[in-house]
Every structure is written in C-alpha cells, then in structure tokens.
C-alpha cells in the first residue's frame, strides 16, 4: 500500500520550531553553559603542565584534549555529553502528549515521520552547534595559551574527534527520544534514560570484568582479557573512549595497548618502532569498528523509536 504525498512534508517546519524551542529552553541553556564552562576551566588549568613539554612533543595541541587537569577533557565529554543529549530529548514526544498538542499537530496534513525526523534532526543540530562552539573555544584557548598554531595533522585529528562526539551525542539523544515515546510520563522517561546513562558510564565498567571472569575459565589470561574487553564494549561510553584514545594519540596502535600496558605487558609488533606516530588514516582504521558500532547503535535506537511511535495511539 503506497502512501499519498511525501512522508517528509512538514519536516523543515517541525525542525525549525524544535530548534527554536531548544535554544530558548532554560534547561538546555543551563546545561550547555555548564558543560562549556567546565570545559574551559579544565583546559585553562591544563595549559601550564602541557607547556612544559613544548620542546619535545610534536602533537602538543592534541594534549589539550587528553592531558588537561584535573581530568582529561575527553573524559569529561564522554561523561557530560550524554547528560545534555538526554536533557534535550527526554520529553520530546511525551511532552507533546501531556500538553495535549500531539493530536492537534498530527491532525495537520503531515505524517508522523515528519514530526519524529524533525525532532531528531533538531536535537542533533542543537548538539552539533554546542559541540562546535566548545571545540572552537578549546582550540582558541589553546592558541592563546600555548602560543603555537596546530599543524594540519592535529587539526584533522581534532576534527575526527568532533565528528565522533556528535555521533556519540546522537546515540544518547536517540535513546532519550525512544524513552520519551515508550513512557507516557516525562519523569519516568527522564529517570530511565538517566539511569541507563549512569549504569553504562559508571557501573558497567565495574561489573563487566566480574561478569567476564565468571564466564571464562580461570588461568587463560588473554582469554579473560578479551572477554572483558568484549563485555566492556557493550557500553557506548567505552566505545567512545577507545576511539578518542586512538584518534587523539598518534602513538597508540591498538585499542588494547593501554589496557595491556596497564597490566605490564608490552605490545609486540613486527618491525614497529615503539611509540612512533602512525598516520591519521591508520588511526581511524584501528577504531573503525567502534565508530561503526556507535553509528549503528544510534540508527537502531532511532528505528526502534520510529516503529514504536508509528504504532502508538495518539489519544490521551
């Protein structure tokens, strides 16, 4: 059965209205200001220690993201970006329900597709704008503080970081959107998505090694390590951190390197000079599965949201 007319008729109208709502929403403004302020503070205080190694470090600029104090900027991003994404999305659909605007809007000549796509695009756009602003601020501060311009390689790597962070934010926004469709109550949707966020970013890294140990035979050290890693990778935060660790540090050759180093095991590679930088393309290739995993997770969540929304009754 073919539908009449375009499924996306009205998409732009919905997206523009949602973007306007986001930028005037107090909650969103507070979250964005908070995240940006924290990031600026972290980078500002991180610049001095980084300055010490100006002479020997060829990738000084990237250290802005990975070696700021008291904690690295990227760790901050992996923790706080989901919070902003959830703040944008947790009341996207059930909010319309509760305000009783949903049936009135859907009685206009548009399909439900336009409403959902519009909301998703608006959320993603808002998050992208926020991340670009943050990114430019960090680089600007870096220029001022370090006094040397970044080279092309560094800019390219920082750009990859930006794209991956947008995808990561999209994942959490899609999750919040799904919760806002499944749960009629705004509070339930908010608590469930925040609960998942805490579980995945804080509890899962603690529990997954225990689970991995339980399912693999003792004594097989490498086997246990691999299972641990496989379990940990179920968390999007772990995927994001792995991507970031490789992309922002040209000397990292494997996502297992830091983990093995932590255990005192050296990664042995034929003919490789330890710590020699590898090109960006190689770095990206190493974490390509993780990037694809994040994108796929986002798409899966959005498709789930789409299916549930299409089948949902509009009556209150």
């Amino acid at each position: 059965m073919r539908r009449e007319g375009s499924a996306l008729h009205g998409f732009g109208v919905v997206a523009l209205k949602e973007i306007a709502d986001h930028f005037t929403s107090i909650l969103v403004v507070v979250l964005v200001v908070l995240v940006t302020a924290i990031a600026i503070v972290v980078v500002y205080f991180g610049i001095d220690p980084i300055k010490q190694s100006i002479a020997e470090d060829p990738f000084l600029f990237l250290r802005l993201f990975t070696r700021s104090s008291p904690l690295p900027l990227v760790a901050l991003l992996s923790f706080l970006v989901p919070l902003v994404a959830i703040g944008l999305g947790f009341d996207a659909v059930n909010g319309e329900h509760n305000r009783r605007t949903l049936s009135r809007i859907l009685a206009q000549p548009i399909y439900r597709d336009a409403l959902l796509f519009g909301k998703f695009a608006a959320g993603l756009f808002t998050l992208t704008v926020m991340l670009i602003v943050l990114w430019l601020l960090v680089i600007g501060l870096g220029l001022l503080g370090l006094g040397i311009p970044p080279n092309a390689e560094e800019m390219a790597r920082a750009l990859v970081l930006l794209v991956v962070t947008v995808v990561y934010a999209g994942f959490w926004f899609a999750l919040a959107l799904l919760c806002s469709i499944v749960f009629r109550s705004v509070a339930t949707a908010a608590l469930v998505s925040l609960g998942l966020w805490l579980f995945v970013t804080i509890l899962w890294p603690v529990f997954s090694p225990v689970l991995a140990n339980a399912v693999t035979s003792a004594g097989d050290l490498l086997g246990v390590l691999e299972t641990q890693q496989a379990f940990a990778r179920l968390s999007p935060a772990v995927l994001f951190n792995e991507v970031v660790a490789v992309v922002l540090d040209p000397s990292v050759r494997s996502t297992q390197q830091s983990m093995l180093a932590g255990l005192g095991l050296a990664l042995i590679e034929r003919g490789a000079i330890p710590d020699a930088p590898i090109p960006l393309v190689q770095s990206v290739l190493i974490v390509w599965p993780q990037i694809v995993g994040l994108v796929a997770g986002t798409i899966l969540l959005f498709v789930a949201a789409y299916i549930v929304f299409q089948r949902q009754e509009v009556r209150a």
Partner: protein
Amino acid sequence: MNGNVIEVKNITKRYDGVAVVNGVSFSVARGEIFGLLGPNGAGKTTTILMLLGLSEISAGQARVLDHDPVREPLAVKRQVGYLPDQVGFYDNLTAAENLRYTARLMGFERAEREQKIKTSLGHVGLAEVADKHVSTFSRGMRQRLGLAEILMKEAQIAILDEPTSGLDPQATADLLNIIRDLKHRGVSVLLSSHLLERVQSVCDRVALFSQGNIALIGTVPELGRQVLGGGFRVEVEAEGQGLAERIAAIPGVQRVEPGGPNRLLLLADHDVRPEAAAAVVAAGGRLLRLSVEEPSLEAIYTRYFQTHEGELHAA
C-alpha cells in the same frame, strides 16, 4: 459525491480483540451539524480518530470528502479541522505564534499566512490577545483558539471533540455561537459531547452512542417520537366549555390530561399549538396561554437507557 461529506459504514475498532467501536454507520451531509452523543468511553473519540486517519480502522469503511482516511490521510487532513478534547497549545508561544506553526504545517505562504491568522483570531474574539502567551489563557480562550485554527485552515469539515466540556455558561454560549457561525460558512460540523442539553440547541441531527454502538440516530424530534412516543408536550390554558374533547380530536394529539383549573396538558407527536389555538377559538373559548415543551435529549437519553438497560447488559 452525493452531498454527504462523511460516510461511515460498519466501522469497527478493536484493541486486543475487544471491540471499542462496533459496526458504527452514519453519514453527515454538507453544511450539517451532526452530534455524536453518549457517555464517556462509548467510542466517540475513537470514531473521530479513525475518521482523521489517526487511528487504524479494524473493519468497515469510512469516506471523508470522498477520500479514504487510511490510504489518503493527507488529503483528508488538509480539508478537515480537528479540535481535540481539552486542546493543548505550546504555552511558551503566543496565540499568533501557535497558529503560525500550524499554518506552516498546512503549507500556507508567508503573506496569506499572516492575513489568515489575523482574520481568524478576530473571528473568535482573540485579536487583542494575539501576542499574549497561551499560558495565560483560560480554558474557553484555548477552545476558541482551537476553532481559530480550524477557521484559518478553511476546513470543509470541523470535527470537535467535547468542545464545551469544562466551560462556564458564558464561554459555552460563545463557543456554540462560533459553531453556528461555522455552519453559516458552509462548514459541516461533527461534534461529540456528553453534555446533552447544550448540544441539543446546535445539532441538526444526533447519534446516540452506547457501548461502541449507535443506539439511535436522527433529529431530536424524531428521536423524541421514537423513544418517548410523542414528545411534544403542549400546555393550553383557556376558559371555555368542552375544550378537552375538541382538542383531543386534533390529529396528532395522543393524550389530553387535565393540568389544573382551566389547564390542559397535551401529548402530541408534533407541535400542535396552531391547531389547539384554532380549536379553542372555534369553541368560543378564551385562550390564556399556550406553550410547548420540545422533547429534550436528556429525557430521550434517560428513557432510552432505562428501557434498554436489560438488553445491553444481556448483549
């Protein structure tokens, strides 16, 4: 097209095998105000949502302006205005901004959009508060804003779900006037309500819903005849001899009862006031007062459900 803007044949809606609307059929003619009446949960809103293509039809057929709401929902929604039960607006936007958003969704160009928003807000008496946030609006103002949206859409059919529920008498009267105004513009109106007496005054025809079925359908006097057996109660106050016999002989009068000194209560199947007056005058009597009480929906409704209660529970 045969003059009917809505044709519904045997539509059924089942949730998990339970029929909420069960084989409902009716039609609405162009320019008519048709009322769907019944208690809450009788299936009125579900029927409306099916007509708008917002809810799937489990069985049966519906045609709205000769379009199938399931297959061509956009064509239907382009020409049908809908005012949901307890309509909501975006509180952070002004009345005009709310209309601007829906006008964009309707696909109006910028120039005609502003013109339409202005005139439609004027029609419902909200021109002065066009730039006020909707959060400050009363319930009645929100309902009127909903009607402004339908006016702006230039819809051929207005579907109103419980438009008067929760409104004070003045707001209800204002709203009913706007609904009558819609009819004068040639808009067909389908409205649902559980408030019978208020709806009676605007509806041309009504359908009484009961547990997912239409129990009765027709004009209010027709239903009165059907259910109350007659329905018009005419009261005659006159002085004279042998009036009761003369009046009882008028065609259409079913019963004559004495209602006190010089007073007669007639039960008739239509308004027999002219004939009764003529009869009194012909008998040489003095006509003091003549009044008619039209059958009330309330009475029809109560009587119908009293007499059919047993059957409904058995069914």
